[in-house]
């Protein structure tokens, strides 16, 4: 039987082109169960999910004109976790499988190469993996509601579609943005990544956000922007400073009613320019919240989608060999991909899970890796009344984390800190 293959979706096209010998774009979703994980049963669950989620059991292949995903016949083997999350996914590894399932004590973690899915798609896979694992281990019956899918049904085409193509506007919006301030520091040896997790009560966080009249994402982005502005102030005089912008991914599924499990999110760079004056936290919250609301509209996002879709339709670019496309995409990414933001804050909102599963799960987390050109990133996920704020870095200095979490404490939010570095 010939192997199935899939075109990369519009957002996924960039990731193979910008991969480096020591950096690849990946993310992790993980869940801690109340008991230690049985690796053999988990392996059975991983294998059982293959027919239902075919677009995740794939390898990355290079065609003449485009990269593509090809069905992988190799098993996705459950591995023991490492000292840090998101270890480098080499091109050699991507030729075998583009996702990893890792276990440490009671934690199941799945790491995805970003060309496969975005955080939402990854979360759906993880939840179904846990559901299947619990069915096999505990013998419980889990209803197919919320994110849980029926493993016996054929994957519907709308789960595998490239929703960008459907929802692009006729006219593309411009990409041009001023370069933002980027943090820097002393690189860790051998690609080590330090993960600092701040655990806070979701209700306290929500109350604080509501006190400022904003959402949790806007509050966290404002506190982060305030911390980065303070760091820039200590480094440069005001006239030589750069804008501080937080890159916030927007899940487009809700805006366009898509059910795709592949990439369907776009990022907005939201922030302020500290050259024009000082900002209080209230002003930052207001500014970020309103800019976010004004930008994350279906019309505006459709224009941004069109900016990504249109080059794909250009006949000259389509006929260019993949190596030439890599050079072009790499140059575009360098100019406009990461330069517009100072740091990512990616927030996965509540995951609707069947009640019965919640009894077995202690916590869930979402982690994105550091970007290619800046060393810190932040990802957020709420579960069971707690919010897990994961700050990852590939430098030694923990100044941003210190400022950010200390500021949350000052705002009256009790923060519990965990770190993988000893």
């Amino acid at each position: 039987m010939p192997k199935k293959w899939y075109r990369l979706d519009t957002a996924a096209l960039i990731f193979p082109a910008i991969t480096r010998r020591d950096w690849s774009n990946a993310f992790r979703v993980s869940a801690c169960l109340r008991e230690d994980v049985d690796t053999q049963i988990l392996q059975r669950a991983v294998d059982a999910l293959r027919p239902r989620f075919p677009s995740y059991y794939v390898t990355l292949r290079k065609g003449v004109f485009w990269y593509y995903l090809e069905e992988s016949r190799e098993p996705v083997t459950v591995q023991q976790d490492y000292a840090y999350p998101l270890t480098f996914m080499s091109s050699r590894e991507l030729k075998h499988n583009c996702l990893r399932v890792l276990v440490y004590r009671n934690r199941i973690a799945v790491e995805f190469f970003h060309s496969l899915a975005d955080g939402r798609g990854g979360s759906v896979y993880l939840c179904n993996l846990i559901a299947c694992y619990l069915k096999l281990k505990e013998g419980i019956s889990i209803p197919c509601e919320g994110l849980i899918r029926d493993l016996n049904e054929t994957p519907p085409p709308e789960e595998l579609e490239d929703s960008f193509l459907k929802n692009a506007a006729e006219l593309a919006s411009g990409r041009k943005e001023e370069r933002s301030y980027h943090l820097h520091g002393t690189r860790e040896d051998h690609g080590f990544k330090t993960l600092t997790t701040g655990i806070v009560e979701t209700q306290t966080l929500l109350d604080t956000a509501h006190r400022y009249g904003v959402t949790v994402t806007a509050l966290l982005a404002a506190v982060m922007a305030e911390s980065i502005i303070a760091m820039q102030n200590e480094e440069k005089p005001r006239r030589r400073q750069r804008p501080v912008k937080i890159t916030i991914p927007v899940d487009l599924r809700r805006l366009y009613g898509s059910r795709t499990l592949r990439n369907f999110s776009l990022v907005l760079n939201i922030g302020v320019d500290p050259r024009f004056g000082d900002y209080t936290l209230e002003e930052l919250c207001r500014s970020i919240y309103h800019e976010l609301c004004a930008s994350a509209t279906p019309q505006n996002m459709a224009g941004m989608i069109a900016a990504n879709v249109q080059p794909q339709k250009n006949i000259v670019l389509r006929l260019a060999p993949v190596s030439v496309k890599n050079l072009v995409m790499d140059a575009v990414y360098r100019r406009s991909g990461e330069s517009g933001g100072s740091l990512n804050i990616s927030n996965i909102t509540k995951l609707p899970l069947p009640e019965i599963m919640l009894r077995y799960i202690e916590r869930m987390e979402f982690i994105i890796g550091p970007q290619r050109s800046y060393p810190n990133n932040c990802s957020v996920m709420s579960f069971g009344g707690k919010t897990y704020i994961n700050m990852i870095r590939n430098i030694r200095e923990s100044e941003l984390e210190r400022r950010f979490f200390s500021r949350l404490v000052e705002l009256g939010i009790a923060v519990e800190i965990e770190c993988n570095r000893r």
Partner: protein
Amino acid sequence: MYCVKCGVKLQEGVERCPLCRTPVWNPEPQKESRSYPDTLPLQHREADLPGAVALTVICCVASIVTLTVCLKLYGRLQWGGYVIFGLLLFYVIAVLPRWFREPRGEVFVPIDHAAAALFVLYVCLKTGGHWFMSFALPVIGSSALISTAMICLLKYVKGGRPFILGGFLLVLGGFTVLVEFFEHLSFGTEMFRWSLYSLAGFGSVGLFLLIAGMIPSLRQGMRRRFFF
């Protein structure tokens, strides 16, 4: 347990706050609860095999074509020798490291210099010159020695970067004087025509780095400015 400086709650058993590195005093020491194991991944650097194969084929084809053309036209190597030895030099410098997962600078730099010496020796013999032993070999040899030492120091000595770079620049300045000295010996040119300028240039930057290494605030400022 809370950090007295940041005010955050810490994991049981940690000795320092992960945010500000403030030591944590715990009257009842407890076992540290670990969220990650100690296992580090294997280093995943890969050899660029497709690139190495493609460049090897290109070099072989170019050499064969050159050889065929020269033999056909002149019945001997003629100018083809320069091309073939040039290609060999290019191969050793640009292609050979691609075959290896982790090409080590301290191994490949002397090999590159040896290939360069071989190429220069061919040119010397072909042109009937007598400058290889008195000029080319000492210059290439000194260059190999200095660059290999520099790579080893940067790789194996932790810290002290400004001192290593400063020292290297001073030695580099001295090396230019040495080059002019061998030029003077081999070709009878006038001494100190240009090398003193380069010695002054390299020397002043090198001295500045040595001084910067001794002054922490200047060192930190430079690190911030020249970070890449």
